[in-house]
């Protein structure tokens, strides 16, 4: 009787172990807990810095996050252009990159970060344009200048820089490059 009970209990505990292992292996080879798992509820989305918050109206923000980049320009270019003109009292003509309103907003409304694999990577350094984004890039001043600065970058001088040129901590010269937390 005791032997039967023992065997039964042993069997149940082994079964329990088996079930536990099954759950871990259900999505792939032993040890990887995530292989094959599906994530389908859209959260947030970012390409270039600040695009959604500058150009997307509050009512459209969730929709913007649900729109894949391949469909973004068709859905949002016109709205971005309206917003750009509104920022400039209807007087936007071009900026320091020589982009007119349709072209500029055409670029911005496909919200992806362009990255060069062959050379300098920067949002803009006066010479290289949209070849990446590094930690020290002053994306705010760059963006403000492109939106408000006019053909030479000198229009609206009170709006083209927030005069915060750098991060609150120096970045690291080696991986992981970002500074330790406060």
């Amino acid at each position, binding site marked *: 009787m005791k032997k039967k009970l023992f065997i039964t209990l042993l069997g149940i505990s082994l079964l329990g172990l088996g079930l536990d292992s099954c759950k871990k292996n259900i999505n792939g080879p032993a040890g990887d807990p995530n292989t094959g798992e599906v994530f389908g509820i859209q959260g947030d989305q*970012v390409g270039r810095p600040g695009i959604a918050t500058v150009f997307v109206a509050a009512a459209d923000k969730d929709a913007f996050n649900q729109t894949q980049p391949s469909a973004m320009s068709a859905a949002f270019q016109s709205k971005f252009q309206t917003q750009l003109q509104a920022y400039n009292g209807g007087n936007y003509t071009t900026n320091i990159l020589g982009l007119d309103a349709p072209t500029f907003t055409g670029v911005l409304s496909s919200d992806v970060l362009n990255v060069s694999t062959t050379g300098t990577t920067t949002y803009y350094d006066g010479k290289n344009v949209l070849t990446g984004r590094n930690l020290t890039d002053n994306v705010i001043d760059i963006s403000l200048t492109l939106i408000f600065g006019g053909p030479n970058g000198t229009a609206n001088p009170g709006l083209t820089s927030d005069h915060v040129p750098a991060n609150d901590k120096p970045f690291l010269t080696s991986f992981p490059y970002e500074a330790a937390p406060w």
Partner: protein
Amino acid sequence: MKKKKLLIGIGLFALILTSGLIWASDHADAPSVKGKSDDITDLYVFQSPTNPNNLVFIGNVQGLLSPALTANASFDPNTLIEFKINSTGGLVEDHVIQCVYNNGKMYIYGPAAPITTGATSTIVGNASLIIPVTSYTANAPTVVTSTSGISGFAGPRDDPFFFDLNQFHAITGGTATSFNNPGKDSFAGTNVMSVVLEIPKSLLPNVPKLNVWMQTKQHM
């Protein structure tokens, strides 16, 4: 009306933005993600300063963490952090790098061709790298490197974003007409949860220009 004293451009600017938007890179940008673990703050992609044969990908989430909040912050196992790459034009991803948190570790998958694209993400293959998450109180960041040359870090970092957001609010709210000089970084003293990956370019599409974007998704 106060706004008559401002430039017409600023007036319209303020009208458009007084619905409470904040221009803070992407910090807390949309109602459905605001304040949640899937809120993205910033994406950075740049050539490694220590090795021009590598690209560095940085994806930051959960912005505006004070030190106290950071001490209790963690990645969410139900949130996928994903870097999407398009190398052929058309802006549909042809490579993905996926980051999934599980039990103290950040699992990195790819770079690899996606199984599904767009609104659904499926974890591809087995992890290329498993990164023990660095705790808030650690003296040094934990860094791991795979045999394929991918280095990874996951954990809290000083928020690298800098902007005088408060003055921007004053401008859009009509109480100021310009930025101050010097300005004051509204993100000073705050942290984010960060994933940093340094990836050999040889593991990425062999084209001169990539298009990259970052998404977070919740588990179905």
